[in-house]
């Protein structure tokens, strides 16, 4: 065995630092503030399919070859998602958030990190069934343009629909899930009416700013990919964007504990990670 074998992990960590720096300097995408353990995994996975022998070898390719960079970047924003993932969350939205949303004449929702759109369609279904859809606008954003394109199409492989149907029922669905899609050849298209009130656009939580005043921010399983600093940046955007009394919904393993904004929110539903922005106490 090479006597420096035990140094390999440290050297690779250093190489990944340099790779992330190169990406940032060259393209402005900042992955330096991402949760590192997952990034390391993804780089190592990518390395084995890249034709390079080491992470160092990837650096000049990333700098000079935009297509190579795009492939790598797609690897960094793995858009794994599901329809009605965590059904209890949608149930809690129906029971605890919708009644408040109904008190506003027009409802604006920011769905940040929407990936390929499964959750956007799920939320649209809930709003429809609660009679709120026609006066809502959902701003669905992600920094992954490929994922957004797929979200705009709303076509998903049939294999996903069995779980989706069960989740929909557990989420308190009021109709038959099959009313919301049209089966095609080994895929199914979500009904296009579920997207008429949705605006899809590119938005990077690491570098872009707030674009409007929101009643609900839905951002699930995105913050877990960020380190604390970047989490705080994103949470500050959400806080700035929300009206007083507006809602924030995070992933079920994400929490405001230990973040900059923990004292700005009250807990609405602990398990579903739904929070409400406090009204300022001096008003």
């Amino acid at each position, binding site marked *: 065995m090479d006597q420096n074998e*035990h140094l390999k*992990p440290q050297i690779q960590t250093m190489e990944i630092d340099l790779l992330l720096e190169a990406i940032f300097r060259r393209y402005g995408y900042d992955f330096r503030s991402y949760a590192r*353990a997952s990034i390391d*995994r*993804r780089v190592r996975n990518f390395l084995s399919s890249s034709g390079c022998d080491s992470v160092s070898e990837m650096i000049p390719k990333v700098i000079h070859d935009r297509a190579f960079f795009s492939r790598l970047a797609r690897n960094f924003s*793995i858009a794994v998602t599901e329809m009605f993932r965590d059904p209890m969350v949608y149930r809690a939205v129906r029971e605890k958030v919708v009644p408040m949303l109904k008190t506003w004449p027009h409802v604006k929702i920011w769905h940040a990190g929407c990936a390929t759109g499964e959750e956007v369609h799920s939320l649209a279904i809930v709003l429809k069934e609660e009679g709120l859809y026609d006066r809502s606008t959902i701003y669905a954003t992600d920094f992954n343009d490929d994922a957004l394109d797929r979200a705009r199409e709303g076509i998903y492989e049939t294999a996903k629909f069995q779980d989706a149907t069960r989740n929909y029922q557990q989420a308190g669905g009021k109709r038959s899930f099959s009313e919301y899609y049209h089966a095609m050849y080994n895929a199914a298209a979500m009904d296009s009416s579920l997207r008429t009130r949705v605006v899809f656009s590119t938005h990077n939580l690491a570098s872009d700013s707030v674009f409007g005043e929101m009643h609900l921010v839905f951002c699930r399983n995105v913050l*877990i990919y960020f380190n604390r600093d970047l989490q705080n940046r994103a949470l500050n955007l959400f806080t700035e964007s929300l009206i007083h009394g507006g809602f924030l919904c995070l992933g079920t393993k994400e*929490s405001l*504990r*230990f973040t900059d904004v923990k004292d700005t929110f009250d807990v609405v539903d602990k398990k579903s990670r739904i929070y409400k922005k406090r009204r300022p106490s001096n008003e």
Partner: protein
Amino acid sequence: MNNKEHKPRREVSYHAVVMGGSAGGFKAFIAILSSLPKDYALPILLVQHLHHNDDGMFSRHLSNALKIPVIEPYDKQTIEPGIVYTAPADYHMLVEMNKTIALSTDEKVNWSRPSIDVLFESAALCYGNRVIGIILSGASADGTVGMGAIKTAGGLTMAQDPNSSAYPVMPQAAIDAGVVDYILTAEKIGNKLMALGQKSNQHQ
């Protein structure tokens, strides 16, 4: 006579234990962990393959059966000694270099989320030769790659004796890959952890 074959590097004190189980894993975890005291010197991170609707049930059952505290961690939680951290259903659990827990919803590895390989590989990176990896009963090959990573980093690896495992495939896969230092029954693994934990304590 001195059996040097399985001797890990002398004088190494360990900083963490990672464990993986699948089918038949629950019983093995109980057999190993029930002897550990409340104030065990090392943190224990554990992946059991779970149904995605588990909703903390595995963790609660384990907690009820053990003296040592068991929790299902939240993302970015600081890892502390004397606590068993169980990966939540449908999330990978990883260790960050700053000794905090990272959860991820990345795609399944070996058809599993959580995956044993994902935890073990990140632990090898973070703890180097200061980690103990243990692979238990299961009908999957998850964990073999991770055990290899721990072995390469100079850590200590143990497998549940396939003959005493409800499902021998998983420990056998690691043994066949040549990445296992000790092959022991669950009870003996428990004794070994007890001894190693005490030693680590003295060295700290």
